[in-house]
């Protein structure tokens, strides 16, 4: 089932993963069990995903993240918001990010 993602919510990297940049590739390594589907998986993000990931913070809503990126890359806000929601949906279903304030 697809995770519900809202622009006015805050999403931040889970403490159960470590993000690393290795030889030009951005990878996310699970630490605790339950991240991803298999026990030997790691994840890599494309360039769009990496740009969004870098902005995710417990202090910013997803809308704030999209706005910042729109200014930085001089891109259309609506498209960037769509990318933000798409990425967070993928990360949320794998428990790589968490929704802040959600029990």
């Amino acid at each position, binding site marked *: 089932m697809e995770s519900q993602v809202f622009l006015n919510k805050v999403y931040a990297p889970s403490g159960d993963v*470590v993000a690393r940049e290795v030889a*030009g590739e951005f990878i996310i390594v699970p*630490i605790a069990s339950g991240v991803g589907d298999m026990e030997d998986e790691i994840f890599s993000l494309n360039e769009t995903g990496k740009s969004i990931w870098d902005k995710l913070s417990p202090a910013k809503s997803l809308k704030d993240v999209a706005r910042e990126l729109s200014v930085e890359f001089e891109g259309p806000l609506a498209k960037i918001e769509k990318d933000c929601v798409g990425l967070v949906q993928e990360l949320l279903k794998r428990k790589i990010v968490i929704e802040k304030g959600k029990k």
Partner: protein
Amino acid sequence: MRRKTYVSTQVFGKAGLFRKLRPVLSSLDMELTERCNNNCIHCCINLPSHDALARKRELSTEAVKKILREAVSLGCLSVRFTGGEPLLRGDFQELYLFARKLGLRVLVFTNATLITPGLVALWCRVPPLGDIEVTVYGMKKSSYEAVTRVPGSYEAAWRGIHLLLKNKIHFVVKGAFLPQNKDEMGAFEAWAAANVPQLDGPPAYSLYFDLRCRRDDAAKNRLIKSLRPSPEEGLRVLVRQKDKYVKGMQAFCSKFMRPSGEKLFSCGAGCGGCVDAYGVFQPCMMLRHPDCVYDLKKGNLRDALEGFFPKLRETKAANPEFLRRCARCFLKGLCEQCPAKAWMEYGTLDTPVAYLCGAAHEQARFLGLIGKKEKAWTVNDWQGRIDAFVKKGR
């Protein structure tokens, strides 16, 4: 319309992660101790578990962590904790957790005797992302303990293995083909097939046992030599699944068989390496020749990987027998001859190891690559022989 994806999934250890560059170091072996609570008849490294001097010389917890941190800064993705028996170290869990929190996959080589419910709980909570590798020395108490020479080790090992099974921890098993347990191969393989889902075929075996890699025990070396299978017996183990073996060898030969020439290092030694229990960085797990190792107390991993090891890898053989035989022999892929083996057998880097030569020739004869009395280094049209062998499988 295809939906855009931002995240791709990779499996550790499979190719395809790096598209442009390669990390300076992709994996590292760390021998946490040379001590072991078993005293296996064939072991090339073990010291007694109570060896106070060895224990005192071992890297401290902080020193291991410093090396792990540097490894990660060089791009390392995977560390293997081995020994001796790595679980003998009182700080094993701390080091494991530290490595995982750095984003490393951790592989562990163990005899399973020291696996506890607490350790299994940690592995459940923070999975290693790779398999635990357990060596099984026998299916019966009598055979197991004839190998390990420690009363109670059989029960302890199987208790550990059952903890892994009960808690669904990923692990693989391997065997050691010894006179004491060779009659149990069938039972071992049947048990492994029924119980270890991570294995995708019969378990691997240690077969051609290495002599003491510190060249520290002549009596033990005599014992190890007496345990080695003959080339004919070794071949019988390798070809027990004949079709699979031949098919595998056809794929292997098409890629890796050729004379090595006068260069000593035609393997990956020195592209990664192994840090021994005392902080000495070796180009591989076995090569401890003093001219080939780098003391991390006087430098760092990067200097070794970018300066010392590349120079070492340029070393050329000087031994006339090596140049006459090994340098011209196309069985390089079948033969385990390498500087580490020459070091363990003779204390040099380039003396041909007669035992390994015999085993490689036995395999080559079976595969039809050479004639009954032929020596592979006398074959000029070696590429034609390989092509004909590979063609048979198509």
